[in-house]
């Protein structure tokens, strides 16, 4: 297990609001550690629409979502935030001294004096198909919702399901790694990138992969570890295929996840906050951006930026109840640093 990370504020969520919170915390000389379930910073902006222009960021008549993330990373860099990416905060505990202890899915431990949840709509989790016994073979027993390391599949028999770009791309890539690749798609055509779809068809015609169209994986079988899948055609005909791994690739969808179990006041899967400082029902825990709710809430990035600024003032008072803080403009202090 890695060493415990110790910081002033742990920000859960590396979306635009979480990143701006790092900057605002830095202005108050507070150190930040940022955790996100996605493997890169930027949240929805990086994951869903990096090449789409945004028009309502003050000072930017138009900016690509990906460029906004890059700029926010540059803006918070002087404060040297640390990141744990690709891991989700799973365990959350408030200690007797008012500080917090967090642990991620991969065992990373973080202690901090305050927590800011900037989790957007929650963590992005794989869309799961309705396949019998799917969950029985999760957790290293044969079902993989993403390809972290292609080498894991070397010389293995794998079945990929899906019709989007991820399914096409990994089918093409793993055709040269796995011993046998079967791609199952419920439709007859692919509307992902045309060249990827063409490559899949070429590989199938050359006998290098097996392409099963108009079909779905419907059952998983195995004793402890996945051994076979049943593929059922839209015409009702079924066949059983032996395999080592099943890789359903149907994209990501946001889920609130473990945050819902942290005893915070929630309404409709959103965290109720006090708009004075965006504090939650648990002192020392704050929620900013799309994950919170209050009368008049607007789910806009620019509103999240405002919330981040006020939240950091509140967190500063929570961490240092005896210190007096006087607001200073960045134009007065010059280039920011911790």
């Amino acid at each position: 297990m890695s060493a415990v990370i110790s910081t002033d504020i742990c920000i859960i969520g590396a979306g635009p609001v979480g990143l701006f919170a790092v900057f605002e915390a830095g202005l108050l000389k507070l150190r930040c550690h940022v955790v996100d379930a996605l493997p890169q910073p930027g949240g929805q902006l990086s994951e869903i629409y990096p090449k789409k222009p945004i028009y309502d960021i003050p000072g930017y008549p138009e900016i690509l979502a990906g460029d906004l993330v890059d700029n926010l990373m540059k803006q918070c860099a002087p404060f040297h935030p640390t990141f744990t990416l690709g891991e989700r905060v799973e365990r959350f505990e408030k200690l007797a001294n008012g500080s917090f202890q967090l642990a991620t899915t991969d065992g990373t431990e973080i202690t901090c004096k305050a927590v800011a949840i900037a989790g957007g709509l929650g963590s992005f989790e794989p869309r799961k198909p309705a396949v019998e016994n799917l969950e029985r073979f999760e957790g290293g027993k044969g079902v993989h919702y993403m390809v972290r390391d292609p080498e894991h599949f070397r010389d293995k028999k794998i079945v990929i399901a899906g019709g989007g770009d991820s399914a096409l791309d990994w089918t093409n890539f793993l055709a040269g790694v796995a011993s046998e690749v079967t791609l199952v798609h419920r439709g007859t055509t692919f509307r992902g990138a045309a060249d990827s779809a063409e490559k899949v068809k070429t590989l199938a015609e050359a006998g290098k992969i097996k392409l099963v169209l108009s079909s779905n994986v419907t059952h998983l079988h195995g004793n402890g570890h996945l051994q076979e899948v049943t593929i059922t055609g839209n015409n009702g005909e079924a066949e059983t295929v032996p395999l080592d791994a099943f890789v359903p690739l149907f994209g990501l969808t946001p889920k609130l996840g473990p945050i819902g179990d942290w005893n915070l006041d929630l309404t409709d899967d959103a965290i109720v906050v006090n708009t004075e400082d965006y504090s939650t029902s648990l002192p020392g825990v704050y929620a900013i951006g799309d994950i919170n709710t209050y009368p008049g809430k607007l789910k806009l990035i620019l509103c999240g930026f405002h919330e981040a600024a006020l939240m950091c003032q509140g967190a500063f008072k929570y961490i240092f109840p005896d210190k007096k803080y006087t607001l200073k403009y960045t134009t007065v202090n010059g280039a920011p640093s911790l």
Partner: protein
Amino acid sequence: MEDIRIYVEEAPGQRRELEAPTDMGLSLMELLKANDYPIQATCGGMALCATCHVEVLAGPPLPEPSDDEWAMLDTLPVLHETSRLSCQIRLHPNLDGLVVRIADPA
């Protein structure tokens, strides 16, 4: 411009009528959200997330999905013959009487 009626099938045989303005440039997704239906519409209406997936059950014919909408629908594990992304359906007087069901979130 007159308001139109959109029906949401909340349970088999149980339809809720929504009055929808057609002069505000709203999408079906925005109408559903405004009426507190639990769709996330994560991407805000860019056909990029499929969290506003609906099934069209009856009503006037709709324009064909764009390539972007098809590409997004194609990523879903479950797709119905009349699946659409509600963010891509612009409310228009021609859509009076449209009946939809909100698809189960995957």
